[in-house]
């Protein structure tokens, strides 16, 4: 930014020097007072001035984007961090898609804002006033003309903008609708073909295209008006200045040198303003993106607990009347869940699909705050602590979670199992054994480079079942006391399911607590305790459960 401001001031100086040199090199020759030899130093100076101005523009183009890239990168990380912190529930409320769009495409529109719009705005507040001052020093009347017309530009633009805004907005809505419908017909072509009705809409595409053109043109006729006003005022003012100078020259009120200098300078006073107008849309998009980003950053995060989590090896975890309202619906899933998870036991969360088993698991993980009831952690000795008061980091350190669709990180298979700091190369015996137990060894065997195969973007994808086996292997290798498995066998056949059951038994033998979400018999049979999750289709759960 400092660079841009410095460049702005330097540009102002060079622009003035350039005009002065040009006027002084030309006028004496026109008046027949000088030859090339007399003005040669001035011409040389002019060449230097042009060179400097080219250099300034080059430097601006070369480095201006750096600040933009930095700001975009910072906002990107900030928004992502915040979105993750706001948790799955916030993301599920329709914020996931908009956040992804914002951090991938939205924030990129900040770049033209920083690289094009802001520098011109800076030039408008540096070059324009300095040039105006110099003109005033040379010819007060010309300066007066410019000073009078300059403010008219924003005034007229705002006025025209105000008058046409509603009309343009209405048209814009129609325009967008027509645009979507056109795309919609293209997108639905496969469906139309399947029904043998692809021929009819051909005419509709033409009609829509024609309607789209008409509406857009109506919008543009109005939208281009403000640009035209700007252009008109800028050029007409220059013309008026030129005519004014000409008439005063005739009467000898002004000398030619001054006249030429002012003539060359006058357009320079308007140039930054014209550029600001030209890049106005870039600014609008950029501001919108920035506002959206700050909206996310200012979102209220639930206060995090500060109490360190009790040792889960000796503590029990209890659901006490936990109810979660399904977003936007009169449904509680789970409705009123109570039950205790004791250390070292295999506990199943059972219930039909949609009952809220996964939500109950998310509550236990501290990712979703229950709308009703609470989860309490009770150490062997001492008072119980509400999960909401526990520092999530200390809680998560003791929990391993295998979700329904485990994430793949862009790294090797081994790094995905062991974490980012996995040593490259040799796979130790322990990892192999865990993989054999979960059946992940078969998955690894089918991959082109075995354990070293890169996963994620640009690498190999894994099916949901394969990912779950990967995550289960990771859980097996970890040392977290509580292992939470969400439908670990939903995508598996009988043989694979038996393996998962073996893995659960191994975990239990190691003294770890297992909480498993399941509705299949083979898994439910493993459980020491079963918690039944029941939903309720009602606005308030108390009516029934009381």
């Amino acid at each position, binding site marked *: 930014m400092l660079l841009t401001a410095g460049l702005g001031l330097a540009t102002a100086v060079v622009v003035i020097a350039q005009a002065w040199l040009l006027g002084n090199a030309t006028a004496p*020759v*026109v008046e027949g007072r000088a*030859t090339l030899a007399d003005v040669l130093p001035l011409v040389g100076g*002019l060449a230097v001035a042009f060179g400097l101005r*080219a250099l300034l523009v080059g430097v601006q183009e070369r480095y201006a984007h750096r600040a933009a*890239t930095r700001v975009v*990168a910072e906002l990107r990380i900030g928004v992502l961090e915040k*979105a*993750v912190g706001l*948790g*799955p529930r916030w993301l599920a409320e329709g914020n*996931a898609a908009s956040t*992804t769009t914002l951090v991938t495409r939205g924030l990129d529109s900040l770049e033209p804002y920083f690289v094009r719009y802001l520098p011109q705005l800076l030039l408008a507040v540096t070059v324009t006033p300095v040039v105006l001052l110099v003109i005033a020093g040379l010819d007060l009347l010309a300066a007066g003309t410019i000073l009078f017309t300059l403010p008219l530009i924003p005034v007229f633009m705002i006025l025209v903008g105000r008058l046409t805004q509603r009309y343009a907005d209405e048209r814009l809505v129609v325009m967008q609708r027509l645009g979507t419908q056109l*795309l*919609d017909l293209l997108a639905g*072509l*496969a469906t*139309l073909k*399947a*029904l*043998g*009705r*692809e021929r*009819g809409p*051909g005419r509709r595409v033409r009609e829509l*295209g*024609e309607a*789209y*053109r008409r509406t857009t*043109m109506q919008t543009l*006729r109005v939208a281009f008006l403000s*640009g*035209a006003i700007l252009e*008109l005022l800028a050029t007409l*003012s*220059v*013309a008026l200045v030129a005519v004014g*100078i*000409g008439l005063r*020259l005739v*009467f000898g009120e002004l000398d030619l040198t001054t*006249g030429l200098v002012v*003539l060359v300078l006058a*357009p320079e006073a308007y140039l930054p303003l014209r550029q600001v107008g030209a890049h106005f849309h870039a600014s609008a998009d950029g501001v919108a993106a920035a506002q959206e980003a700050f909206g996310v950053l200012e979102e209220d995060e639930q206060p995090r607990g500060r109490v360190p989590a009790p040792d889960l090896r000796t503590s029990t975890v209890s659901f006490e009347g936990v109810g979660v309202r399904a977003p936007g619906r009169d449904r509680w899933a789970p409705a009123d869940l109570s039950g205790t998870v004791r250390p070292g036991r295999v506990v199943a969360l059972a219930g*039909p699909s*949609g009952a809220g088993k996964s939500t109950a698991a998310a509550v236990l*993980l501290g990712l979703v705050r229950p709308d009703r009831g609470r989860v309490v952690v009770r150490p062997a000795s001492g008072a119980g602590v509400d999960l909401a008061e526990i520092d*999530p980091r200390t809680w*998560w350190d003791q929990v391993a*979670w295998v*979700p329904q669709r*485990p*994430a793949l990180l*862009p790294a090797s298979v081994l790094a995905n199992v062991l974490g980012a700091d996995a040593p490259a190369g040799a796979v130790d015996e322990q990892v192999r054994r865990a993989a054999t137990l979960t059946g992940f060894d078969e998955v690894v065997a*089918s991959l082109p480079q075995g354990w070293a195969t890169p996963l994620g973007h640009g690498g190999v994808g894994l*099916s*949901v079942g*394969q990912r779950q086996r990967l995550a289960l292997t990771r859980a097996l290798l970890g040392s977290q006391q509580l292992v939470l498995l969400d439908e670990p066998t939903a995508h598996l056949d009988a043989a694979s399911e038996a393996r998962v059951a073996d893995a659960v038994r191994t975990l239990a033998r190691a003294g770890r607590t297992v909480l498993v979400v399941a509705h*299949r018999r083979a898994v439910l049979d493993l459980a020491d305790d079963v918690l039944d999750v029941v939903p309720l*289709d009602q606005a308030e759960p108390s009516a029934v459960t009381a």
Partner: protein
Amino acid sequence: MTAVAAPGLREQHRALVRCLRLLDLRRGRLAWAVTAGSLGLGSAVALIAASGWLIARASQMPPVLDLSVAVVSVRAFGISRALFRYLERLASHDVALSGMGALRERLYSTLAAGRADAVVGLRRGDVLTRTGADVDAVGDLVVRALLPAAVTAVVGLGSVVLVAVFLPAAAVVLAACLLGAGVLSPWLTARAARRAEVALADERAELSATALTLVDSAGELQVSGRTTTLLAAVSRTDARLAVQADRAARPAAWAAALNLAAMGAAVVGALLLGVPATTAGTLAAVELAVVVLVPLAAFEATSMLPAAAVQLVRSGAAAVRVTALLDAAQPDGTPSAGSPSVGVAETSGAPSTLGARGVACGWPGGPVVLEGVDVELRPGRAVAVVGASGVGKTTLLLTLAGLLEPRAGSVRVGGRDPWPLDRATVSETVVLTAEDAHVFDTTVLENLRVARGDVTPDEARAALVAAGLGPWLAGLPDGVETRLSTDATTVSGGERRRLLLARALLSPAPVLLLDEPAEHLDAAAADALVTDLLETGRGDRGVLLVTHRLSALGAADEVLVLGHDGDSLADADAPPATGGPGAGPARVVARGTHADLVARLPAYAWALAQEDTGVVDVGPSARPTVLPPDVRTDQR
């Protein structure tokens, strides 16, 4: 150009030329746009030339009347500049918009008449949605690249001629400088843009993928403490993006500097040549001002060119995608759907039956995923197809519907091969409702009329109620006239399925092919729906449905189990691409009635046992009602 970009470049140019032809630009309108643009920018040059002349002449203190022409022209040029610019913008956008309309229409008609498999394949990955943006990018070429280039050429030439009238030598210098700025600087910019486009595309894709993972698996990553790992990955990608952007900025900076340097050279050149000429008397003193000042305005034209070059690169990439799409849909080899349908009189089978003998299917260019399938379908018969996901159930449906060419064997619809047949003819007998069938951005009624043009509102309401959408319909503000948007804000997954079902039931075809009609429904609702659909087959319709739930298949006349030898039914893992045990085409591993398969096939019985019993507490609104007979028999 770098060696990497060179082949793509030629391809881009070819694609651009082809797309431009398809834009079918209205020449008169385009010529007017160029004229208006040239007059607008020419006014700027004329303004400074006239002002220079006026001031220089005025300094000689002539009678004021001598100046009146100059004064009037200066004022006129001050106004005409903005006026013509406004007209030019309107004209150019008008030309581009109608061109884009023509291209869209051409694209639509080519795709509609072209190979069905190309279109059906395209739906995946939303290529078509991107196509909209690509068409816009091609259209932008007119406004942002072609027009500025043409205007620059005209105004540049005009300026040179103007200067040549006074001092030919200075005109030569100006021409050289304009050429340098007008060719070299866009070339540099285009190079930078192309480099950025190639290098940044990968990084951007990676950034999106990582951001998506972060947002999709936020909870899991937080619990396992891996958020920082991914955020670090985002930072690294951003850093690489910054390096690339920095590298691309260098030629762009040169381009910008070059334009100003060229302007400086032209002005200095004019002075160096003009001053001695004035002293020598070969150039009038007043004209020196014109010769020196004209370059100041003339280079405004070339300053538009770098942006035009960037647009050229962007439009080029878009044009390549658009032409690739057109080529994919070219009806090469297959009789075009536009040609009259073959052999109308040929009816070797009952008109309303669908039969397949030894059919093998697969996507063109891909492997054969399924082979040796025999199916017989006629009104009154209901068949279910089950199998692991990825086994080729959907591919089979597309082949039976005539949307994919069978790789072996034969398909007969009403006794004729449906693949080369006109789609409208095929759909008199067979219609397919795909799993991802489209819900159009229009009213509920119009969405149903996609199946049959003359559906009345009453018929529509009956069909919706029959498909279990009664309560949903009651909640719509304008009933069947309510507008649906394509995003899922008004229609949930389950409601969408039922809407598609209502559409299928309204179609006049006697044979219905349905892909996963019960997806997104809970177990009980799914089973009730599948039972209903299979019962539909008892009337005068034939139904073939693909499903992954077995519980309700007791109502089917026949169940086909697809798979590989040794596979179990529920094994949804092992995508064939990894070359696991599932490689090679699948086939019908078993067929029979539901009861028969339960008794005979342990894997079938096991998979059935794993399913929810369907005794699930669902809201009353979620359960579809039994289809009333009037909808089942609604045909004409």
